[in-house]
């Protein structure tokens, strides 16, 4: 299932690439049969998908491999050449055929043919690259899980990452090609003197290809991500406890892409491309191509049967009766009306430039994060150091100012309160501020608090009881805090009866122990009250 899905997605992505390139050819060289070229390339992609596994099973540069590949490419070259000839009409095709037969090969390599051949080579290689990466990710489990292969290099990029790189790289290429399809190259080439006046057309039809390429690319990434994870788990022998992981993955992926598509279609982007119209464009294009291919195959079969007639100089009966094969045409986008509201323009511009700034900052941060050398270089640069020093100076001063201000406000408030207390306006407060006590007295405070609270709950300390004896009695009532009672008692004994300095850390520990004892006492009181009820 993974294989079928990934092959379909690769085909669709290649179809988008072919669509875009076809539009470029149509823009740059209107006289060429761009639709036919696109159809031939798609046919080649289908062939590559079909023969990939057979060719992969052969040893490279072996006799079988050379024969298989050579035969395939000879056929491809001939089909392309004859298709291009046939596109000019049957008479042109027959004339070309007779020239080739007589050995006039110079006409074989027309510019249109050479460019088509190079594009076919590119399509072939690109399709293979996609399939190679998918095989490595997990389509070929034997390859993906191979343990006896060469040791994995630490700098080797994972296959999924390479697939992302490939998809994005081709995306860059497509974006540039799409721009070129919008530029009126004919006008530029006809006015070569002085600076060329670049005229940008509204739509060229390649936008749909570029956009859908990314959509299908993201879908393929989702599928390959699942495959790479499964391979990773298989390699590490991590069991999958969920029975519906794959099904849920598909649901989440489709939902994610749908939400993304809806969100993107709602965001302002000038003359927007409607999602459904784009899909309709691609479907129409593919349908036209497939119909053309079907008719082409039928025409080739009829041609085979007509060859004996042609050799004897008679007109083939089948071909005369059928109309010439219309080449496939590339779709064109409808012209959408522009927005005229000024407010909407303002909102759009704000969103546009705001989004661009955010994207640039985000991309820069990610770039710096990924390239540690740049970060180190930035740290070493003078400007960065100066900025960092300036920031530290600012924050230090701000902290000092804040501390001074709070101290001044506190002192002022205390002096106001003490004055008011002195005049009897405010009642005196006899709270003890723990912060003002030294660690020894803090320990006294917590121990006496424990004794007081214990006494309130019926565990009164007898005057003759030593701290240890009282601790034993208290532990009987609070068994869950035995260690805390012991530690607070030991700390009190040390603080009370020894002359050595008490560590502030010890006072903190005692504070923590007292907190736990207090909670235990409170819980005990609550339990007693609820039991009495």
């Amino acid at each position, binding site marked *: 299932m993974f294989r079928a899905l990934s092959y379909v997605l690769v085909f669709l992505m290649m179809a988008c690439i072919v669509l875009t390139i076809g539009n470029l050819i149509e823009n740059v060289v209107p006289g060429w049969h761009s639709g036919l070229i696109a159809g031939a390339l798609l046919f080649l992609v289908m062939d590559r998908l079909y023969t990939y596994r057979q060719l992969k099973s052969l040893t490279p540069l072996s006799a079988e491999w050379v024969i298989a590949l050579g035969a395939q490419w000879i056929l491809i070259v001939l089909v392309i050449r004859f298709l291009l000839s046939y596109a000019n009409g049957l008479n042109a095709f027959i004339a070309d055929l007779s020239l080739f037969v007589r050995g006039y090969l110079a006409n074989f390599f027309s510019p249109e043919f050479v460019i088509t051949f190079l594009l076919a080579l590119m399509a072939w290689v690109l399709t293979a690259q996609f399939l190679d990466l998918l095989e490595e990710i997990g389509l070929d489990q034997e390859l993906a899980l191979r343990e006896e292969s060469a040791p994995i290099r630490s700098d080797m990029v994972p296959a*999924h*990452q390479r697939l*992302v*790189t490939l998809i*994005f790289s081709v*995306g*860059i290429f497509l*974006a*540039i090609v*799409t*721009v070129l399809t919008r530029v009126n190259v004919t006008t530029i080439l006809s006015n070569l003197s002085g600076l060329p006046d670049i005229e940008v057309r509204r739509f060229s039809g390649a*936008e749909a290809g*570029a956009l859908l390429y*990314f959509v299908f690319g*993201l879908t393929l*990434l*989702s599928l*390959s*991500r699942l495959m790479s*994870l499964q391979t990773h*788990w298989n390699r*590490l022998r*991590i*069991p*999958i*406890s*969920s029975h*519906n*992981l794959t099904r*849920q*993955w598909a649901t*989440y992926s489709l939902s*994610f892409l749908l*939400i*993304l598509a809806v*969100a*993107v279609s709602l*965001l302002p*982007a000038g003359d*927007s*491309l409607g999602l459904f119209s784009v899909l309709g464009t691609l479907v129409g294009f593919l349908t036209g191509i497939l119909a053309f291919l079907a008719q082409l195959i039928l025409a080739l079969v009829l041609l085979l049967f007509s060859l004996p007639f042609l050799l004897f100089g008679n007109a083939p009966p089948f071909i005369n009766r059928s109309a010439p094969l219309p080449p496939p045409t590339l779709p064109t986008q409808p012209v959408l009306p522009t927005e005229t509201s000024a407010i909407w323009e303002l909102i759009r511009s704000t969103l*546009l430039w705001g*989004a*661009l700034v955010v*994207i*640039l900052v985000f*991309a820069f941060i*990610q770039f710096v994060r*990924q390239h540690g050398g740049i970060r180190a270089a930035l740290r070493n640069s003078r400007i960065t150091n100066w900025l960092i020093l300036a920031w530290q100076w600012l924050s230090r001063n701000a902290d000092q100012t804040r501390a001074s201000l709070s101290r001044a406000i506190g002192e002022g408030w205390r002096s106001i309160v003490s004055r008011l207390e002195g005049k009897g306006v405010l009642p005196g407060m006899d709270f003890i501020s723990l912060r003002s006590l030294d660690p020894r007295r803090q320990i006294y405070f917590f121990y006496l608090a424990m004794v007081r609270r214990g006494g309130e709950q019926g565990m009164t300390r007898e005057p003759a009881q030593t701290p*240890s004896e009282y*601790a*034993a009695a208290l*532990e009987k009532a609070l*068994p869950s805090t*035995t*260690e805390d009672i*012991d530690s607070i008692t*030991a700390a009190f004994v040390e603080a009370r009866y020894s002359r050595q300095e008490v560590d502030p*850390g010890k006072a903190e*520990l005692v504070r923590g122990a007292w907190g736990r004892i207090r909670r235990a006492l409170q819980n005990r009181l609550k339990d007693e009250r609820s039991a009495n009820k």
Partner: protein
Amino acid sequence: MSGTFLPLLVVLVLIAAFLRGDFALTLIYLVVGALAMGTWWCRRALGQVDAKRHFNTHAFLGEQIKIDLQVQNKGWLPVPWLELRETLPVALAGPHSFQTVTNLGPRAAAQFEYFVQARKRGYYPIGPLTLSTGDILGLSDSLLAHSQAEALIIYPKIIPFASARISSHSPQGTLRHSLPLFEDPTRVFGKRSYTSGDSLRRIDWKSSASTGRLQVKLFEPSIALETCVILNLNAEDYYYRSRMDSTELAIVIAASMSNWIVEKKQMVGMVVNGRDPLSAELMPQSIPARKGKRHLMRLLETLARVEVIDNSAFGSFIQKQRYQLAWGTTLIVITGSAGDELMDELYQARRRGQNPVLILAGRDSTEEAIRQRAAVFDIPVFSIATERDLTLWMQGSKRT
């Protein structure tokens, strides 16, 4: 994230600027949106996942501990994949360490269980549990989260004692002893005729009236085992070749002695010259003498956690501790070897009215010399080289 992401964005931004918006902007939204939404979903979903373990945190040696792990998604965002890996200490890890992959729907939960074997005493952290997930397109790196580790305490081995030949000088105790210095007036085991010099308080008037002759009561002897087990885990005091076994044996002895004393309903405390990973100062807290099973559990917990320490002189450690102990306390000192400093401290303890007993754990070549020195100070010495010796000592006590 892929290194071509930034160049793609730059190209699209330039195209958007050149064409003043439209399809390039749509592509930017699509690509950045995929990355941003995916990363946000992944981070948010992982933040909503909560993992809880349920297991018995205390176990004895040899037990199999079942750990139930519940993983719950508290949010409304589903988690497409979640890899769980539990970190187990080497001493507990078996051939099948816990790791699995699952997915969690909105507000869904998953339950897992696995087992660990209590092979060795100690304080072990179970976890942390590593949860990892990632975005559905694989555009950003996987995220990791860790849930807190929880402690598992495996108690040391306890060898049950029938009795132990430990003398006590405490009056008014509660156990019979063969060499009494004191008698317990609450335990009358017989009567005899009055002889000159007997105290008038010992006269049994009822039997004197019935026999017509003055009879005095005979009281049973007694000891009071207010005991403090002082365990030395200073590495230098143990023979280096068998240090690990000897220190473990010392802990087993301490645990077994504490268990025996608590079973006899006596009070026992403990101080350890070792390292406690849970203590703030890394030194185990001294445990005052108490009775009862709960107190025994506390002692065993401390013994489960303590570890060997380096460069901690035992003599000065005992000196600090014995001042806090009451007169008449029996000090059961467990160590690997005893030098002059220790002997001196034990002698001082005896002079202060405490009752030191020295137990040598493990093999030591100077054992004979130690015995001779201890005999001079009248300090009983018991040598236990292996657990088998401990068992035999127990059986030997039983026979006597």
